Every structure is written in structure tokens, then in C-alpha cells.
């Protein structure tokens, strides 16, 4: 029987947006979308899609993409489909804009209950907008599943999954009973690029859509556990002392002398 894998992906502002184009509206505590820079699928989530597709390449698997949010850009959200995922399920509602982690867990677990059961739920290690790195841990607790973070390799077995988990200094091998929630990190290796055939196939697919009501939820179920009081860009004044010389080598030499002068080396 084919393994059923869900991958949770989030649409986020492009994290490569140059710092000069990153703006915040402090009066409403919101990030102002940078003009002309479209959003992207969160980078680590593409690694999670890649992990699912590697499992599919090696055996039989059905890969379902789940996303909760607002203002989805369809070209962006179809990327996992064009990489080779089978279905895309979107829960889109104005109430899902900038949800806190607890609310996101509420929505995603309702989506999983509605579209599941799944043997494996893969997610990115962290979303590059609010950098929380804990929605998947909440999902696992809410659904009472085992969880393992920071996978650099995911190998499903019989009723279990074996994960190589990246540490800051090495790795661990962990075995968890399935269904399990596994977060995937960039140490897995690059995510594949969509092929032309994949893009064509994805363009013909329509996402399945779930509304707040279809998920059995209402706006009250999404009241925040943490309140954002203030959002601002920290002030930083450049105080750099640029070292110049007759040529670049001379500048290198003078840099060393200057650091010695201040007893820094």
C-alpha cells in the first residue's frame, strides 16, 4: 500500500528581500510587502517536499501538500506540485493572516484530520517570516503523534521512521513510530527544480479548498495566545572604518597593523 505523506508548506515573503526593501508599518505591527518581490514557498518546506519525493522515488507514496494562509499566489503555491507532489490542499481565509503558532496548529490539525490519515507528516524546520520553529511540535502534541526535528535524512520502515537528525555538531539517528511529525532541514540537500513536464502537469491541477467552516472552526477558535505588541526595525548606524591602501594587498597589510595597534590580535 502506498505510504501517505502530508507536507505542510507556508507562503512567506521572500527572505532574500534586500534589507533596504524590508519595511514595517509600526502603526499596525505589520510587514509591508516589498513591491515587485513576489512571495515564495518557505525554503525549508521545499526541503520537506524533497524528502517526500525521495521517498516516493524509492517506493510507493502519495504526497499531499497542505497550506493555511491568506492571499495565496497560485504560481507560488503550485511549486510543490510541479516538483512532483500529487495534491494541493489550501485553507485560505482572512482570519489566517499572521496567525500565532497555537492558531496555526489548530488549523493544520483540522486539515490533517479532514484529509488524512497520513503515515508521515513532513514540515520545514522553521518558517522564515516569524522564525518560530515550533508549529510542527505543536501539531504533534495536538494530534498525539511522535515528533522528530531537523531531519537530514528520512527513511520510512514498517510502522516506524528512521531519521538522521542534524545537530549543531554532528547528528543523531532517531527512530519514531508512525504516524510521526518530522521537520526537515537544509542539511537534507538541495530541493529538486520543477521539470517542464512537472510545470505542465501542475498547471492542469486545481487545488482542493477548505473553508474555516468546513474545517469545523470559527474565528473564536483562533484567538491568539501571544499578542504582538510591537514590531520594529532595530536602528543600526554603520560605524565602519574602511582601511585603504595603495592597492588591495597594501590594504590587507594595513588592516593587520590597525588591529594590532588596538591590541585586537
Amino acid at each position: 500500500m502506498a505510504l501517505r505523506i502530508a507536507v505542510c508548506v507556508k507562503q512567506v515573503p521572500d527572505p532574500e528581500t534586500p534589507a533596504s526593501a524590508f519595511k514595517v508599518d509600526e502603526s499596525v505591527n505589520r510587514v509591508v510587502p516589498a513591491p515587485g518581490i513576489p512571495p515564495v514557498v518557505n525554503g525549508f518546506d521545499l526541503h520537506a517536499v524533497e524528502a517526500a519525493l525521495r521517498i516516493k522515488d524509492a517506493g510507493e507514496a502519495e504526497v499531499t501538500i497542505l497550506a493555511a494562509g491568506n492571499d495565496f499566489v497560485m504560481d507560488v503555491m503550485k511549486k510543490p506540485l510541479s516538483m512532483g507532489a500529487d495534491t494541493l490542499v489550501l485553507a485560505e481565509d482572512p482570519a489566517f493572516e499572521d496567525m500565532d503558532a497555537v492558531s496555526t496548529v489548530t488549523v493544520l490539525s483540522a486539515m490533517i484530520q479532514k484529509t488524512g490519515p497520513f503515515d508521515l507528516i513532513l514540515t520545514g524546520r522553521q518558517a522564515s517570516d516569524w522564525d518560530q520553529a515550533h508549529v510542527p511540535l505543536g501539531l504533534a502534541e495536538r494530534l498525539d503523534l511522535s515528533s522528530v526535528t531537523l531531519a537530514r535524512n528520512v527513511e520510512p520502515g514498517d510502522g516506524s521512521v528512521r531519521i538522521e537528525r542534524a545537530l549543531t555538531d554532528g547528528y543523531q539517528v532517531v527512530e519514531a513510530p508512525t504516524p510521526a511529525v518530522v521537520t526537515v532541514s537544509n542539511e537534507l540537500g538541495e530541493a529538486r527544480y520543477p521539470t517542464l513536464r512537472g510545470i505542465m502537469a501542475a498547471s492542469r491541477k486545481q487545488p482542493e479548498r477548505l473553508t474555516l467552516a468546513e474545517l469545523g472552526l470559527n474565528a473564536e477558535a483562533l484567538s491568539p495566545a501571544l499578542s504582538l505588541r510591537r514590531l520594529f526595525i532595530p536602528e543600526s548606524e554603520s560605524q565602519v572604518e574602511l582601511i585603504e591602501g595603495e592597492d588591495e594587498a597594501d590594504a590587507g597589510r594595513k588592516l593587520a597593523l590597525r588591529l594590532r595597534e588596538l591590541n585586537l590580535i
Partner: protein
Amino acid sequence: MSGILVIGEVENGALSAVSGELLAAAGKLVDEGVSGGVSLALMGDDLTGITAAHAPGADRVILMSNPALKDGGTGGYDAPVLAAAALNESTSPDVILFAKTDFGAVTGPRLAFKLGVPVAQDCVDVALDSETGRVAVTRPVFGGNALAVYGFNGDGAQIATIRPGVFDPIEGEGSGTVEEFDVSAAVAAVRTTLVETVLQESEGVRLEDADVIISGGRGLGGPEPFEQLQELANILGGAVGASRAACDAGWVDHSYQIGLTGKSVNPTVYVSIGISGASQHMAGLSGARNIVAINKDGDANIFKSARFGVVGDWEKVLPAFTATVRDLAG
């Protein structure tokens, strides 16, 4: 409900640096008016060497010794989560602090969701909000491009994980009480199995401990130049680091990565070579005192945070820099 529970960490039988930093964060909350005292809880298989003297700022030291808690848990982090939940039940703290380490970044949020209370990850400040009597936290968001201040709603425990290297540990000797807390019943329900841990042995100075770091990025163009960085690091008794781009390219191991999803470092001198200075990289450098940048692009973001810089091609700048450093070290 009262007091602050600090979940510290143990390394080689002794308190690790983050434990002292967490006690300092707790101390700040106490100074601002959080009552009920500070308890430091430690988990491990053998905690016999630990005394209250090691924990300045803690009124109580609570030792949770169990084989399942060895090195952060033999069952992934299941055992620490269960142990912390049992301790929470028995002590009902108002605030629970973890460090945002491999261990705390998982254990803290899992505990929070298990208890059904909010959690704030990767905080760089904690404060008492005198209006609400609840805690407010500051955390970098959008890769460090912005800072967000959050307040905890509801009235349950307030859980935060604290970014390492941000708080300065309290100096001196502790004089609290020490007690044992039995978790053997709690840790029986472990689901995951830790099969093995493979640690990357770093030769020489550890990045986290290094006083000088020579760090390279995509601008180096390949793995070979890292040998020149190592040579310079050797002369200065420092360590070599890297940006994520250099690690993802396979030029160096991911254990070299500095930044938001890599290591946090606090050297006196950080020499960055061919690194653009993306906010996610800079997030690992909040403890670095003197950033020195060598980059051919004078508009690179790194020059905004650097104290010294050379705008130029590293292939020309670095050999002369290294030669001069070697002469000076003479």
C-alpha cells in the same frame, strides 16, 4: 502558581554556560518584580557533581537524575518533555525558561503545547509588563530584520526559550537548596528511540569558545580557500566558521555554520571573508565584539555591522593580511 523555573543544561557533569545565562534572565525578571523565587532544574543520568554553589541566582536546585535523561534524553526528547511536565505539575511555576539550544528549542515548545500554554521561541529579552503583571518577550523575526515584542495572554505558565549568548551569567557562588525530584514514573512513556549520536569532533578551538573567528562565505568560490582561512585561524589561535551558503555548497561541514539556524558565537574578533552579511547570518553574531569584513562589494550589508573593513578581492587582500599577522605574531 508562582516563581520562575529555569530548565538548565548539563555538559560533562557540570552546568553548561547557557544555564548561567538563563539564571541571569530569571534574575532580571525577579528584579522587575516577579515573585516566588527561582528554581533551577537539571536533567541527566548522573548529577552527583553538581552543588548549589554552581548556580548563583537559584534559590532551589532541583536534580532530576534518570538513565533516560542522559545527554538530553535517550528517547529523542520525549523523556525530558515528560520529566519537565511532571515537575511543572508539582511546582506550578509562573514562568519557565529554556535555552534555545538543540535541546531547549524542542523541549520548551513541546512542553508548552503539552500543557496548552503559549511559548515564545528564541527570545533576546524578557521583561515584566507592570500593567498586566505578565511577561513580555522580545524576539528577532524575519531573519533578524525586525524585532517583535509579545505579551503572553491567558493565565497559564509562560514559557520562553532564550537565545544563547545574549545574557551575561551572574558571577559568584550560589547558596540555594538542593533537592532531588523523582521522574522514573514520568519517563516511562517514551515513544521515540535514540539509536546513536555521532558528534563531529572539532580540531582545535570550538567555535562557541573561540576568541577569534575567521569565517568564509560564497565569495570564496570553493572549498580550497578555507585552507587559507584555517592557516590564519591557526596563527591567531582561533577557529574557522562559515555562512550557510558555503556549508550548503558542501565546501565545509554544516557544523561550521554561524547564524540563525547555525551557531551563535561571541568572539572578540570576527573576520568575515566573502560573506554578504544577510540578517540570518548576522543573527549568530550578536555576541561578536569586533567584526572585520573583507568583501569586494562596498555596498554589502556586512559593512553596516562591521567595525573595520576592506573593500577588495579577498584573493589579493587575504595573503597580505595573513603574512602581516604572521610577522606580528613573530
